[in-house]
């Protein structure tokens, strides 16, 4: 679905992303994993043109990603995007947030309603909460609204930037399960950013472990654990193991 060729990005003097080439296969979930500031969010934003790369190019569906204009808008409508905290529009109800693009594109009401019903069912969102404003929703509900909004136009790709970042552990756990089910049902190309190793392993078909603007290792979680590419991978994995004495096997 995506093909990146020698893509790099600087913010002033900081090289956020060193030249990088990789391909993201269609219908698979790829997780961009790494500590804060490793360039994973930058990489994600290159995929829907929120950022433009300094060098190289991004091919979307075989064609270079447009840099602006209607062509870029058209791509964005095929690429759903949700970020940490949801980024919901506070002046619109949950339903209005989800159907904003449909109403902008003047979908017939019946079509919008049908799609909304399907999404509510998919994300297990309480129907009566659709009329509430973001400030009246819980953190988990906000994230579900953001997911519905990203999926409203039935995009080919779903980009998620730490979608579960700001949630407490129980809600997070519940949503992780739901997300995995949704990804499996929709079979869309998903690119998800997280710094949580377990989440990456649970949701991703493939993991890109990143550090300081470079991809350190790409593969499944088991590969990373079994054959770490370097010392950093080992340390990153160890750092996210349960604390000693914190549970069964902690001391083993």
């Amino acid at each position, binding site marked *: 679905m995506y093909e990146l060729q020698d893509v790099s990005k600087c913010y002033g003097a900081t090289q956020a992303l060193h030249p990088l080439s990789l391909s993201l296969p269609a219908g698979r979930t790829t997780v961009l994993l790494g500590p804060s500031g490793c360039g994973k969010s930058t990489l994600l934003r290159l995929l*829907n043109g*929120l950022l433009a790369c300094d060098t190289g190019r991004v091919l979307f569906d075989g064609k270079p990603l447009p840099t602006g204009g*209607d062509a870029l*808008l*058209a*791509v*964005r*409508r095929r*690429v759903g*995007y*949700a*970020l*940490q*905290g*949801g*980024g*919901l*529009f*506070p*002046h*619109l*109800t949950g339903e209005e947030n989800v159907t*904003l*693009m449909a109403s*902008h594109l003047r979908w017939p009401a019946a079509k919008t309603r049908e799609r909304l019903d399907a999404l509510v069912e998919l994300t297990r969102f309480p129907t009566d909460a659709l009329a509430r*404003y*973001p*400030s*009246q*929703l*819980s*953190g*988990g*509900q906000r994230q579900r609204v*953001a997911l519905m*909004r990203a999926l409203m*136009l039935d995009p080919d790709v779903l*980009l998620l930037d730490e979608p579960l970042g700001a949630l*407490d552990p129980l*809600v997070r756990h519940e949503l992780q399960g739901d997300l995995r089910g949704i990804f499996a049902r929709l079979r869309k190309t998903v690119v998800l950013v997280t710094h949580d190793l377990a989440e990456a392993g649970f949701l991703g078909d493939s993991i890109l472990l990143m550090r300081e603007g470079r991809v350190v290792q790409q593969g499944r979680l088991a590969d990373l654990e079994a054959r770490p590419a370097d010392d950093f991978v080992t340390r990153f994995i160890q750092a996210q193991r349960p604390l000693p004495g914190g549970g069964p096997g902690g001391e083993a």
Partner: protein
Amino acid sequence: MRVWLLVLLLVGACGGAPASGDGAPEVRVGSKKFTESVILGEAAAQLARSTGARVTHRRELGGTTVLWEALRRGELDVYPEYTGTLRQELLSGRHLPDDAALREALAESGLRMSEPLGFNNTYALGMKEAEAARLGIRRISDLRAHPSLRFGFSNEFMDRADGWPALRDSYRLPQRDVRGLDHDLAYRGMESGSLQLTDLYSTDAEIQAYGLRVLEDDLHHFPAYDAVLLYRDDLEARAPEALAAMLRLEGRVSEEDMVKLNARARLERVSEGRVASDFLATALGVTSEVRGDGLAARVWKRTREHLFLVGVSLLAAMALAVPLGVLAARRPRLGRGVLGLTGVIQTVPSLALLVVMIPLLGIGSRPAIAALFLYSLLPIVRNTAAGLAGIPPEVRESAEALGLPARARLWRIELPMAAPSILAGIQTAAVINVGTATLGALVGAGGYGQPILTGIRLDDVRLILEGAVPAAALALLASGLFDAVERVVVPRGLRLGTAVRSTR
């Protein structure tokens, strides 16, 4: 640029002069914001009206330059002026030696000057009548024989080059006990006997009130400030009868007359219209009607004028300032320039701004609306820019990532989210405008400023309140109105605020 033109057109269209109706000629009289000028303006207006002309009297305009410009631009036909003011202030660069030279200079601008009305309102020295009689003092020269007299002069007169220092030198006055003090205190000092002589204007109402004798300026030290009517030379062709009637005032108003008229208006609080009317009846045998509205009618008329000033200027400001605010938020560098410029406008004193507007827009509501419009820009531009800048980046990014075009993002997301801030800016501008619009009376725009101006001039608290109370009420009303508008315009989701935010 196009927006500017639009606003100017709007302002122009709204402030346009009324079209002339039947065949009666139109005469527009002006007067300055002090009592004597208003009385003379009233007298001229009533005389013109007695010939059947349609007469408007723009009273109490804020200063000599305002009237002078308005007359030259043809927005006024006639107003009372003083030869000294013309020579020393308006045409001071020309160094005109006498009235004949003055007439020539005026003719170059298409203006004419009547013969003197009969009194000279210049600096003068005054003493209590009884004391002057006792000491046998009639002329300023007589003071030389009384070196121990106690003098008290207004601070201005003490400091002016042509004031006390020059007077002392030209009359070789020997007095040493000379104090500078506030003018009102000087009158009280005369009353208590601690002062024996002070400076005054030769037609001050106080001359009569305190029983003062004005000493003759036998060496002609003070320049002549002969009262005249200044008028446009096209008036003779347009309204010959009205002009002839007004010129009947020539040589008919003595200093003694003028002191009495001033005293009646200032001290007895008789309306200037009535004072002028009574004078015309006795001096010229002209009977004229004095129109007076009731309190409710006056307040209602001024409310309409005031609302017009505030409403038009605010609407025009909104039309320009909101787009400017959007621009400022989109292009921060340009935005700093825009905010800087509107900020600079805000620091220009209102009176100065009004006067600057007159050569461009004349007198009346137009300059007032233009000034109010300029003052309204800053709060609206700033609040619009701040409201847009305050939108969280993740919300901005979400809107962009959805594939909404920039225009739709602005209308569907950014402006609604900035609405509370924008509205607060408009509210601030409206409340400030209601207050500032009272200054519009200085350029003939009417409104609540008119009674305030008159009240200040006559030291009449009741009149001041007649303008100040409705102005305060209107400011509160405007503020309340915007609170109500906020409930309608600001999306409910924003009004909920963080109070009900739950985290589960």
